[in-house]
């Protein structure tokens, strides 16, 4: 493979087991991966494939049972709260359901101020903070003057997801992990969200990891696609390779089951 690119996030034998004894379930089963800097990666799987568990492990929200995660080639160490905070300056996330992603008791200002504080701007003068928040909001085509003193739940789903992107704009992480960022919003808002994500990626040069069940979306946005089934990666490679010329029966089935508009949708294979 082309190893001129710098490794950003990689993993070896990453495994997550829930429960003990008879109730043991292996959610993620010895997966290996290598994400490079600036790359757009999609991890595609159906519900229950373990993709969300993997995402949480990558984010460091849950511990791994076995295996290692390497961040920029070095073994990740998030043993203490301090180290975790440092790690989270590098990797951030956007979640599936914008309506449950915000603390309903906190105003939009607090959400954005948190990000400024995390980037070490807690002591900046208030005017400067407002300027930064205004810039972040205008990046995603929102008006900060209209949002200030409002609560996130007063916005539509699409707007909330854009606010999430504004948050990332302020945080400028190395890696952004987007867990089904468009599955809860309408098709036309989806285009807007994807546009902003791509713009943001170009602007701050981050690595984007999409976690999705939508193989169409994965094909549309990503450079590299990983197909996940029952906790394992069954196929991976460049988007064109994997989607247009799938090798594994599981990938073929997934592709087959998705309705298309240019090719005949073969219903007889159910």
């Amino acid at each position, binding site marked *: 493979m082309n190893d001129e690119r710098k490794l950003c996030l990689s993993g070896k034998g990453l495994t997550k087991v829930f429960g003990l004894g008879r109730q043991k379930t292996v959610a993620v089963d010895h997966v290996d991966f290598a994400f490079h800097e600036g790359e757009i990666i999609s991890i595609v799987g159906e519900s229950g494939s373990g993709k969300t568990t993997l995402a949480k492990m990558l984010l460091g929200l849950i511990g791994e049972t076995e295996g290692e995660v390497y961040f920029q080639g070095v073994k990740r160490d998030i043993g203490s709260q301090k180290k975790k905070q440092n790690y989270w300056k590098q990797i951030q996330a956007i979640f599936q359901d914008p309506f449950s992603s915000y603390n309903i008791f906190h105003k939009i200002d607090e959400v954005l101020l948190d990000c400024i504080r995390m980037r070490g701007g807690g002591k900046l003068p208030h005017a400067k903070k407002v300027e930064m928040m205004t810039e972040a909001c205008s990046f995603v085509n929102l008006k900060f003057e209209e949002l200030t003193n409002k609560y996130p739940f007063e916005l539509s789903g699409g707007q909330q997801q854009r606010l999430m992107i504004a948050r990332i704009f302020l945080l400028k992480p190395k890696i952004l992990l987007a867990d089904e960022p468009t599955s809860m919003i309408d*098709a036309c808002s989806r*285009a807007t969200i994807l546009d902003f994500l791509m713009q943001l990626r170009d602007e701050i040069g981050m690595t984007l990891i999409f976690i999705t069940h939508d*193989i169409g979306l994965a094909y549309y946005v990503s450079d590299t696609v990983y197909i996940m089934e029952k906790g394992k990666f069954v196929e991976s490679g460049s988007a064109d390779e994997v989607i247009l010329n799938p090798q594994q029966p599981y990938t073929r089935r997934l592709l087959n089951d998705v309705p298309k508009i240019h090719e005949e949708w073969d219903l007889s294979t159910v």
Partner: protein
Amino acid sequence: MGKVMLEVRELTTKYITRFNEDIYAVDHVSLKVEEGKSLGIAGESGCGKSTLALSLMGYYFPPLYYTSGDIIINERNISGMDPDEVRKSILGKEIAYIPQAAMNALNPTQKVINFVEDVIHAHEPTATKKDIYDMARQRFEILGLPAEVLQKYSVELSGGMKQRTVIAISVILGPKVLIADEPSSALDVTSQKMVIKMLRDLMDRGMIKSMIFITHELPLLYNVTDDIMVMYAGQMVEHATAEQAVFDPLHPYARGLMGSIIVPESGLRGHKLAAIPGVPPNLKKPPSGCRFAERCKYVTPTCRAVSVNMREAANDREYRCIFAEQELREMYKNE
């Protein structure tokens, strides 16, 4: 031209909120579904497509109220009919309805066969258990559902199986129209495909005479229905064959919607998606002019001033815009 199974003329229904405000979620909608045909309804959430589904059945309960218009099912006008009467003589027999979460509607303490018995007994009180079982078994097998399902409790079935079971039960009386509101959105792609295949089978075998399919997933709609109707802010804005609606939409909103389709097919990777800025209008106070004006690229002052009606275009199509078909095509060409 086939026999008209369902015809709706200028149907208007409203919600009355807790604060006594009227929200016209379905605003002068007209449509026609012929025997053997299926109609798809597309639109973003809040556009009134699910309310339209409820309204079509003539079965109103607060906070939804009938305001005006006609609903004619199989040559029988049911608008303004008493909800009890609708429930007894229309639902199940003339119209069947499958909501998105239909699979959660099965009482977990009952076996599937009990639901079938309930449905049939409501209309044929004399049917014996054996007759019902034989009939249900035959039906289920035709539709590709194993007969053992009848003896199971709903919790023993997977999501996709449950949804297909519910559909099979809903159509057991042979309704003239099946209204399916996002019947597969909560399912994974494989189960979704099975549900779609089943709906196709039902149509092909004449177990349902016509179908209205509601979803926001356009590739799905394209593959399931003959015609597509696009709704925006409680109104119909485009009505055409599925082919025309997806590849040659006339209304700017429909065009935006179709431009946002993402499918895993070669050549579609990285093309520019059409994004529609802004949010739909508040239906408590809809704008007097074109409802899409605020978000439309081609807006003119006239759009905001005059109310826009549906107009006809070539090939039996309809759309709601002040521009003529030719003008729209010119504008789209110059992009």
